[in-house]
C-alpha cells in the first residue's frame, strides 16, 4: 500500500549514478524500480529498494542528499485502457499526481504513484477495488 521511495538529488556529473548504485550494491540492497527526473544541471533519482531504511542510512553516511517519500504501488492488467480507468478514478475524485512511473511485465503492469494527497488517493483506490501492492511486496519485486 504505502511504500517508502528513496529520492536522491544528483548533480549532472559523470559517474554519480555509478556511485549511488555502488553504495547500494556494497550493502547488498536490491533495486526493484527506479526513474530519474532531470533538469538542466541536476536530477532526482527515485528508487524502490529492498531495504529502504538501511539504504537511506548508508546513503546519508556517504553524504548523498537523500529523502524518503511515501508512494503508492498498484498493479493493473497489461491491457489497453486499464491504466486509463485508474487515472479516471483518481482525477474524478480530485486526486492530483505529482509524478508516476511504471513498467509492464507479462500479464500485469506495476505503477508507482506519488499523489499530492496520499490518504485520499488510497481511499479512492480501495473503494474502486484497484489492486494495491503491499510495500513489502514492492520492495521484493
Amino acid at each position, binding site marked *: 500500500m504505502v511504500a517508502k521511495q528513496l529520492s536522491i538529488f544528483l548533480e549532472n556529473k559523470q559517474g554519480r549514478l555509478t556511485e549511488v548504485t555502488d553504495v547500494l550494491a556494497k550493502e547488498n540492497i536490491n533495486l526493484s524500480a527506479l526513474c530519474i527526473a532531470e533538469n538542466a*544541471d*541536476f536530477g532526482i533519482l527515485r528508487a524502490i529498494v529492498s531495504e529502504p531504511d538501511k539504504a537511506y542510512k548508508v546513503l*546519508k553516511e556517504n553524504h548523498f542528499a537523500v529523502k524518503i517519500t511515501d508512494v503508492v504501488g498498484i498493479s493493473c492488467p497489461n491491457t489497453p485502457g486499464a491504466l486509463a480507468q485508474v487515472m479516471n478514478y483518481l482525477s474524478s475524485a480530485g486526486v492530483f499526481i505529482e509524478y508516476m512511473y511504471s513498467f509492464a511485465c507479462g500479464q500485469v503492469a506495476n505503477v508507482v504513484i506519488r499523489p499530492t494527497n496520499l490518504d485520499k488517493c488510497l481511499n479512492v483506490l480501495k473503494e474502486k477495488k484497484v489492486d494495491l501492492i503491499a510495500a513489502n511486496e514492492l520492495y521484493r519485486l
Partner: protein
Amino acid sequence: MIWNETIECMDRESLRKIQSIRLKKMVDYVYHNTPFYRKKMQQMDITPDDINDINDIVKLPFTTKLDLRDNYPFGLCAVPMSQIVRIHASSGTTGKPTVVGYTRKDLSVWTECLSRSFTAFGGSQSDVFQISYGYGLFTGGLGAHAGAENIGASVIPMSSGNTQKQITLMHDFGATMLCCTPSYALHLAEAIHDSGISFEEFKLKAGAFGAEPWTESMRCELEKKLGIKAYDIYGLSEMDGPGVGFECEAQHGTHLNEDHFFPEIIDPKTLEPMESGKTGELVFTHLTKQGMPLLRYRTKDLSALHYEKCSCGRTLVRMDRILGRSDDMLIIRGVNVFPTQIESVILSLPEFDPNFLLIVDRINNTDVMELQVEVRPDYYSDEINKIVALKKKLGAALQSVLGLSVNVRLVEPRSIERSTGKAKRVIDKRVFK
C-alpha cells in the same frame, strides 16, 4: 579581561604622544638603516627632521606589496641578518612570496599583541589552546603558539589538516580555545557532527578566527554550530601576522594595537587621508619594528576606524570588519563584488550551506558568474519545481544585494572542497590582456 591595561585603556592624548615619539624615532631609524626609504624620502625632499609628531605621518611615502616584491627577499631589512631570528613568508599566490624578517624584540612585540588578543577572547592560563593554523612559513601557527604560551595557557600545536585527529585531541585533551581560519572552523563543526560525538562532550568555549575575511553572519553560524563565542583576530604578515587587531567581548569592531602599528584610512584613488568613520583603504606604519619596518604600508583592506571608547574599557581604536582585500574584489560588468557579500547572502537563507564556489568567466564579452552552493540536507526536495524555486530564491537575493544576476547551480552535500587553511571561494577564468 585585559592583558595590558596601561596601554589598552590609555587616554587618547597620552597614546598620541607615545605614537608621536615612536614615529619620530622610527623615521630616523629607517632613514639611516633602510636605503629604500632614504632614497624615497630624498626624492620627496624630506628628512627625519620634518617629522615631529604623528600628524606629520601624511608627509611620508607609501609602501606597497610591489615594493616588497621588488626588494625580495631581504632588501627592506633594516638590520644585518645576524640580528634576524625568524623569517616568515606569505603564501604568495602570484609570483614570489613576500618575506618578513623578525628580530628577537620583534617577536616579543608580536607575542605581546597576541597575548592582548587572547586575553580579550577570555583566554588565560587555565585554558587549553588548540592551534590549528598551519605551522611553518605562514605566520598563523607559530604566532598564535607564542601568544598562547605567553599567557600561560596549555598549547596543543596541532597545525592544520588531519581533521579526525583534530577532533579526537580536541575532545580528549579538553581544548577550550580554537585558533584557525573561520572556514576550517566550519569544516571542523561539520566533521564533529559526523563523528557522532555530542558537542556537549567538548569543552570548547571560544574561537580565535582570522587569516581570511569573514562576515557577521558567518560568526552567528559558527557560534551556533560550535556552541562557542567566535572572535575575529586580524593581521597581515607584512605587519607581524595575527594580532595586529582583535575583538573584545563587546564584538563591536576590531581593536588595533596602535602603539605598535599606526593605522590610517586613505582614499585608495587620491591617497588622501579620510576622516574617522569613513571607509577607505587601511594603511599601517610600524612604530616599533626593528627587523623590517614599513612606513605607510597599503594593506588593500577596506575598513573604517572609530575612536570612541569601547564598552569593554579599551581606548584602542576600533576597525570595522574587513569587507575584503581590494585584491579579492571582483569587478563584474563594472560592479564591485566581494566574496564576503555572497557569503552573507547565502547565510541569510536557512536552506543553504555556507560553503560556496564562485566561478567567474567571460562569455561573448560579458562577465558571467556561476555560484555553486550546497543545499542543507533537510531542504533537498523530492520535487524538481521545489528545487528550482530554491535556486530562484537565492538568485533573487543575490540580485538584490549585488545588483547583478548570478547563475545559481545547486550541488550535492559535501561536494565543494573543504579547506584546512584559507578557503578558495573564487575561480576567475577571465583572461585580461
